[in-house]
């Protein structure tokens, strides 16, 4: 980043090359859409490019990058939920537990795949149901393996606050996913 800050444009290309999978991966954890994740990752790198002159290397570059990534992802989620409020009835494909939600008898998907997909959806829902800060803390802790101190720097709060955020988040996740632990549907893959 420092080389790029001095005006070396090739260093920016190197920076993109080196961090793209982390940025795309992180956004994908928030929004679960690969195409949108790539568009938003481009937005993250553009923001980094624009902010090159004001960047101060007081914290780790990755912390700064994760903060931008989390902000871009949360903004996208907010605008998505606003759009969803305006959605027309023609666009709604999920009709809940009515007859259409019955399993398709001709489906060739094996049971294990169905369970796997259902479980993934439930996990996704459980993460989405968390308040924004808890979501960020969970994603950074679980999928990026960040320490509480690094999450605190990224989110802009104290380590104690992260401890409390993650304690509440894990309790919430446990409540949301309880069925999948007890029925054994999730347990097959849990050691």
């Amino acid at each position, binding site marked *: 980043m420092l080389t790029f800050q001095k005006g070396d444009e090739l260093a*920016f*290309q190197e920076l*993109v*090359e080196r961090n*793209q*999978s982390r940025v*795309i*991966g992180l*956004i*994908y*954890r928030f929004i679960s859409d*690969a195409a949108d*994740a*790539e568009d938003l*990752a*481009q937005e993250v*790198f*553009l923001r980094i*490019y624009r902010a090159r002159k004001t960047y101060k290397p007081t914290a780790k570059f990755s912390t700064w990058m994760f903060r931008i990534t989390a902000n871009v992802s949360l903004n996208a989620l907010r605008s998505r939920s606003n759009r969803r409020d305006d959605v027309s009835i023609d666009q709604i494909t999920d009709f809940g537990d009515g007859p259409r939600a019955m399993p398709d008898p001709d489906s060739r998907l094996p049971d294990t795949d169905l369970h*796997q997909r259902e*479980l*993934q959806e439930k*996990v*996704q829902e459980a*993460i989405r149901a968390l308040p924004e800060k808890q979501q960020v803390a*969970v994603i950074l*802790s*679980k*999928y990026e393996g960040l*320490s*509480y101190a690094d999450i605190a720097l990224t989110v802009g709060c104290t380590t104690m606050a992260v*401890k409390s955020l*993650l*304690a509440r*988040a*894990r*309790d919430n*996740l*446990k409540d*949301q*996913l*309880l069925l*999948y*632990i007890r029925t054994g549907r*999730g*347990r097959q*893959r*849990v*050691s």
Partner: protein
Amino acid sequence: MPSPCQWVRSVLAAWLDGELKVSTAEAVRRHLEQCESCRAHARLLKESWRLLDEMPPAPVRSGFTGRMMARLVEEKELNRLEARLEPRRRRRQVVASVLGLAAGLILGLVLHTWTGLPEKPKRPIEREVSLNVSFLEDADLMDEIAVIEAMDRLMSDNQPDEGV
């Protein structure tokens, strides 16, 4: 004062993440050895956390860097155009402001001329003066009439008798 179970449950997540001091972590471990209920709670937390591994990683398409750099070139080009357009845009704004002001002034003038201002009612003193002026004008007229009559009289007195 929280009970030992309440305290342990409040730090269980940090304990599972290995974020507690050694002495605190040891105290939690000792409590869990004795407390079945907290042990069950810890197991649920651990297993629900593991379920998050079921989420697949993001599929990254190849060629991202190339697409990113192309977008950066577009962005730079846009910025360059914006910078070139900026003085023109500012000039256009000034011209538009001046024209707007001029149009307003002209419209005001036209409306003023078209409607005209209503005649102000005369104040009492002005009415008095006006009456006096008209009286004086009448007096002058009377004087003139008197002079004419006097002249007529003189002329008829001085005229020779035609029949003599």
